[in-house]
């Protein structure tokens, strides 16, 4: 715990990805085994023990602290774990600091009844940061701004082993990952994962600029629709079945109907969608499923999942990745015709002759489930990562809205003296409703000017946030907009960015909420 607690503490305060990586690398370099393996499991969300409830923690602290003082403190601090970690009276003579592995091992053995007493003993011995880290650990969900992929990236940078290699063995390993660390430190060869349903890092496409098209020969490329869902990999191997996200997270538990529908002995690449009566539902519907770790029967009925297949990577024991795209496509079609899997179909190949043909098709595709077009070289093998050249994604033009700047927040690091994160809104009658946040899309010069404008038009301050006069119009570009219960305005934008700053446009002429609602998919 001596190293793990400061690691969590550092991660929660550090906004920059690079610095988070530095903290994790330092931890993996210096922490002993098996602690670092358990820490890795905690960071990647693979520590599973029965969570302790907030009411149990409160009961525990009430045995030791005056209730009035606790309530006054809780009112001030506003967070239970933090209040408890700070107010917990340290006990003299209790100074044996438990290691992370001792804590994890004991919690695995603990019952609902005796877990609180064990936690109480540890709280006695830990310092406030240790207590806070322990409480985060036992109440579930670290929420320190680290994804499983970022933790794996730290492992890769620390060990100089490519991230793809780590991802490809990951699901064949289990906490506390002793064999993984021994491999990463060069003591043993790569852990054997043959026959296990591991993830194969997926192949990604480069974005395509229209101007670049002239350099490509249409005869070399095949076109497919780019569906507005999430990329997934289906793995059936050795009698086991897995569904992975594009970053290699196992999301099978949330999609039991797909796991049930999956044939064995095949690895497929496709787009996860919600499909109703043969129609692709909105991304927002898919989001309902993605937001949950488990699916209720109601969710299964209301938001039925589907996979539209793009590619085949493995069939039986045969690795198909070295084959050219055209051969893999033929294998995919043959396999599909004989396997006839439920809840899946093939993403069609779009015939075209010239780029102009394709441009027309792309412009004509008004279906909201289509994000654009994928171009894949007919001779391209399946290569993990984002190689330059073989695959392109050619997105549809972005949507835009004229919005009014409402709040600006200071950035971090290089941007800490700049108001660089902008909350913007649209009109509802004569009131502004915030609809999104953007923090890129402008040049350094524009940032300086925006920052000056914010400082000169501030009407209120809340910590690092300033409310500004509703006068500046920001033209915001975004890929799509959806209904959302998680946002106050009831809508959520995908990839909002500042497209243009309309210094010239009167705020009254910005869009209103009806304009926004028309764009909702």
């Amino acid at each position, binding site marked *: 715990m001596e190293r793990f607690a400061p690691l969590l503490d550092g991660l929660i305060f550090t906004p920059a990805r690079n*610095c988070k990586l530095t903290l994790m690398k330092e931890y993996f370099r210096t922490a002993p085994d098996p602690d670092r393996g358990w820490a890795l499991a905690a960071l990647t969300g693979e520590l599973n023990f029965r969570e302790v409830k907030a009411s149990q923690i409160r009961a525990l602290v009430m045995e030791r602290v005056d209730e009035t003082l606790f309530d006054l403190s809780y009112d001030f601090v506003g967070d239970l774990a933090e209040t408890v970690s700070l107010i917990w009276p340290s006990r003299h003579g209790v100074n044996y600091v438990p290691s992370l592995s001792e804590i994890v091992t004991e919690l695995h053995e603990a019952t609902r009844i005796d877990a609180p007493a064990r936690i109480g003993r540890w709280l006695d011995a830990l*310092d406030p940061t240790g207590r806070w880290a322990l409480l985060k650990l036992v109440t579930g969900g670290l929420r320190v701004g680290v994804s499983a992929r970022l933790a794996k990236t730290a492992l890769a940078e620390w060990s100089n082993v490519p991230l793809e290699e780590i991802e490809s063995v990951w699901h064949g390993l289990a906490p506390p990952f002793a064999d993984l660390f021994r491999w990463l430190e060069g003591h043993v060869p790569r852990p054997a994962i043959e026959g296990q349903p591991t993830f194969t890092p997926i192949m990604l496409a480069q974005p395509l600029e229209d101007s670049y098209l002239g350099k490509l020969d249409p005869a070399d490329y095949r076109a497919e629709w780019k569906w507005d869902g999430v990329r997934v990999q289906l793995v059936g191997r050795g009698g086991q079945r897995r569904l992975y996200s594009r970053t290699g997270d196992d999301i099978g538990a949330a999609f039991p109907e797909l796991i049930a529908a999956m044939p064995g002995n095949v690895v497929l690449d496709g787009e996860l969608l919600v499909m109703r009566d043969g129609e692709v539902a909105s991304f927002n519907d898919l989001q309902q499923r993605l937001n949950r770790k488990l699916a209720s029967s109601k969710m299964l009925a209301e938001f039925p999942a589907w996979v539209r297949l793009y590619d085949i990577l493995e069939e039986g024991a045969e690795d198909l990745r070295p084959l050219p795209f055209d051969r893999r496509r033929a294998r995919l079609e043959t396999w599909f015709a004989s396997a006839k899997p439920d809840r899946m179909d093939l993403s069609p190949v779009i015939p075209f002759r010239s780029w102009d043909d394709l441009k027309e098709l792309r412009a004509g595709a008004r279906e909201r489930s289509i994000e654009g077009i994928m171009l894949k070289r007919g001779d391209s093998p399946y290569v993990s990562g984002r190689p330059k050249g073989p695959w392109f994604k050619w997105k549809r033009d972005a949507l835009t809205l004229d919005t009014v700047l409402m709040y600006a927040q200071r950035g971090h690091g290089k941007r800490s003296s700049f108001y660089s994160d902008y909350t913007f809104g649209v009109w509802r009658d004569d009131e502004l409703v915030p609809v999104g946040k953007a923090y890129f899309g402008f040049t350094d010069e524009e940032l300086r000017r925006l920052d000056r404008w914010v400082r000169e038009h501030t009407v209120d301050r809340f910590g690092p946030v300033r409310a500004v006069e509703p006068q500046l119009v920001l033209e915001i570009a975004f890929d799509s907009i959806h209904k959302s219960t998680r946002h106050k305005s009831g809508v959520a934008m995908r990839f909002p960015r500042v497209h243009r700053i309309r210094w010239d446009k009167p705020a009254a002429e910005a869009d209103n909420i009806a304009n926004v609602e028309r764009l909702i998919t």
Partner: protein
Amino acid sequence: MSIAAPRPETWIRTTAAGLYCEPGDFYIDPRHPVPRAVITHGHGDHARAGNGQVLATPETIAIMQLRYGDGAGAVLQTLSYGEALTINAVVVRLLPAGHVLGSAQIVLDYRGSRVVVSGDYKRRADPTCAPFEPQSADLFITEATFGLPVFRHPPDDQEIDKLLHSLTLLPERCHLVGVYVLGKCQRVLVLLRRAGYEEPVYVHGALLGMTELYERMGVALGPVLPATGAPREALKGRIVLAPPTAPAEPWSRRLPDPLVAQASGWMRVRQRAKAGGIELPLVISDHADWDELTATIEEVKPGELWVTHGAEEALLYQAGKMGFRARALSLVGYEDEE
């Protein structure tokens, strides 16, 4: 307090201008200009400009002169720690409060009745100022800035280690530490030196004058350089001290990839530090924490306790549990107007 001694509330009370000692006819840390003021220490909320006669420790007088020039007061009178001065019928003494250089508790004796006004104080060792001297009192008026049991400041060296560790881990980033001009800045400097950090420390222009004053008063701070005007490249991996507002100001754009730290007791609460955009919170405080407040009350054993400055409710409750008669000072003030 002898049988005939007057009860403290008969001769000291709050007014619109602040705490007023009637038989002495002077105010303590007045909020508005008054003819005669006794000042606990140089912080802006205690030492204000424009008073007539001003009495304080020599260090506090020097600090006020640095801050206000001629506005420091019409007549400035110094009183060293422990010396007694009779103002009308009231004997005034100043005792170290351990808060910042020159900070004092004000001890007032009047006809066998004693009032001690703590001013701001802390109990842990601070190499930049004299330590707090507890004094028994009939009435003790204490601050309560950190009057909640969630405030237990960790050892200073632990926090300084956090800063130095971050510096070795992220040697490309300039470490911008927010500190108050008076006290915190100089204390952080001395703590860094004690931790073996001998590199020059760069400071914001607003801190230079006070830092020089500390040096003149005999507090050695090691090499200190102005941050303004230093080449950007030279500030990589350096510690820069600046007022807590500086990270938000265009001034900080001269710094290479600044990592924003702040040295303050408020940094104990994560949510608060995070909301303020702090990346490296350093819990270093010049105010007593909960344990220091309660231990001090126990030690002073006042006949009565008045609590001011901050989270009064919890400390009043705790003092009651400890068997002391306690009131919030603001309430005492309102009573006068009824």
